[in-house]
């Protein structure tokens, strides 16, 4: 497959090997690695060492929007055409709590999902090689690099026990 991003793609069968490789690559100033793994793995995550995802902010603000939306909806609609029921006040806040709560959850969770999609999309993986094995039992590490660096990178990767290294240039 023709790819636009030049670099080296390595398959790892061993998690510690992959982790070490990543650390060393970062140490040797390689940026913008892409690490593929079939499952969420703390060891790799630590090795990559990205900051905590901002998803939580989306969830928080959406939740707050939800609660206020819920209450204002109920209150406004009750007083837009005031109809008396069971001798209760027209705007009976306690009974609107449920609405407020449900909308909090609804907005919050929807926003969270959207957040994942948007945030993941912000980092484009376009042109980076991928291999089906990565959704099976291999860890993949792709190192973007110039052709002249490739040899060194390959050596580094195999050094950490990469089972298969391909060069895309």
């Amino acid at each position, binding site marked *: 497959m023709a790819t636009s991003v030049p670099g080296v793609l390595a398959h790892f*069968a*061993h*998690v*510690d*090997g992959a*982790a070490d490789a990543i650390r060393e690559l970062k140490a040797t100033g390689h940026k913008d690695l*892409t*690490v*593929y*793994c*079939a*499952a*969420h*793995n*703390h*060891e*790799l*995550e630590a090795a990559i060492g*990205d900051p*905590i*995802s901002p*998803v*939580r902010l989306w*969830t928080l603000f959406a*939740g707050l929007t939800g609660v206020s939306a819920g209450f204002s*909806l109920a209150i406004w*609609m*009750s007083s*837009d*055409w005031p*109809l008396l*029921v069971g001798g*209760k006040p027209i705007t*009976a806040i306690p*009974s609107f709590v*449920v*609405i407020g*709560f*449900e909308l909090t*959850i*609804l907005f*919050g*969770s*929807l926003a*969270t*999902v959207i*957040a*994942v999609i948007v*945030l*993941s999309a912000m*980092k484009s*993986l376009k042109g980076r090689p*991928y291999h*089906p094995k*990565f*959704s*099976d*039992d291999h*860890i993949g590490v792709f190192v973007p690099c110039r052709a002249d660096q490739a040899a060194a990178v390959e050596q580094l990767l195999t050094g950490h*026990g990469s089972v298969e290294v391909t060069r895309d240039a």
Partner: protein
Amino acid sequence: MAVIAHDPSRPTQTHGEVTRDVLATITSKPTKGYYILLGTMAFLTAVLLGTVTMLLKEGLGLAGYAPPIMWSVYITTFVFWVGIGHAGTLISAILFLFRSPWRTAVYRATEAMTVFAVMTAALFPIIHIGRQWIFYWLIPYPNARYLWPNFKSPLLWDVFAISTYLTVSSTFLMVGLIPDIAAVRDHVSGWRKKLYGALSLGWTGADSQWRHYSRAYLYLAALATPLVLSVHSVVSWDFAVSIVPGWHGTIFAPYFVAGAIYSGIGMVLTLMIPLRKVLKVEHMITDYHFDNLSKLTLFTGTILFYAYGMEYFVAWYSGSTFEQTTFWRRAFGPAWWAGWAMIICNAFVSQLLWFKKIRTNLTSLFIISIFINLGMWFERYVIVTSSLANDYIPYAWGQINPTWADWLILLGSFGWFGLWFTLFYKNFPIVAIQEIKEMIPMPRRKVSSHGGAH
């Protein structure tokens, strides 16, 4: 991760085997038995639709309603199915937060059950109302009448609770599925590859994706947890905020939630025990899991036991003749059999699970699970009808005999539920590949080095 190292639930497998075994459930050719099952479910669904059409044509008179019993089988079944749903979310969300490892193998199945159960439940309020074709009047939308629905009505709370629950739980299911679908995509070919490719939303398992995904999943779980507790509380308030003796109880919310989880796990057992055989995943869903499920059943069942006792006690202690009469007649009135069916199936049968022998014997467990389903349906039936049957004005008391229109719709609802579930387990990973993998430590080069890098 040290925890997992000592985890008895840890299946002795590699990532590769997990992928292979789970995908096998999808890629293997469907058996004759599968088609028979599918056909039966489709037929029952047709029965459901047929009966509903009759109701639409002739009116609710076809059902057994006998005033003052204005709610009966349909509302009973509605609560029943909503309850079923709760186990799923409990296992997938609450146990996730509690980091209880045994959930992993079963949560996908239970979560699917949740979604389909809620989908089934959502039919019933519509079937139940007198003018089904204008059910949407319960939704607040701008209209020519300048009228809004009544937010003080518990039924409206229901609309919000159920629709939120359906949305969130299905979102939760789909999000969890994405990486697995990607795995499927990578191991099938042809049109299926295209299909799963589209569904996987371009998932590659890159670090940039996992980074947000893992967080998001945590928050979803965190949101789903209060939701699952709230939904059945709201459902219980459909009854509890009324002034009907036998409904008007402060204990209702926790009582209903416990009951819901109890019934839900009952249904999980009923589904999983045969399923693991059919799909040959016994080595992933093991006695260990069922033991834990049974313990959960025992726990919630015991809560129910307490709740039942408390209901009768409060009725007596309240000194209110209305409450007293209602509960007296619940146990010794014309419908005594239903009252006792509920107590025996739920309060007593669940106590058998104190014995490990029974807990770990799948046959006995399966039988018990059937009792649980029955008992919980009757619980709702009793709460709904027997309370209405004899309230304040003795002159207006009544009794009810459900008719074919009631029974066929109840039966059909199982078909509708089953249809979705059957389709699901054959086309999507019924065991969560990526989460199982997460629990299986990957091979290491330096065996000496301790696992984990924190």
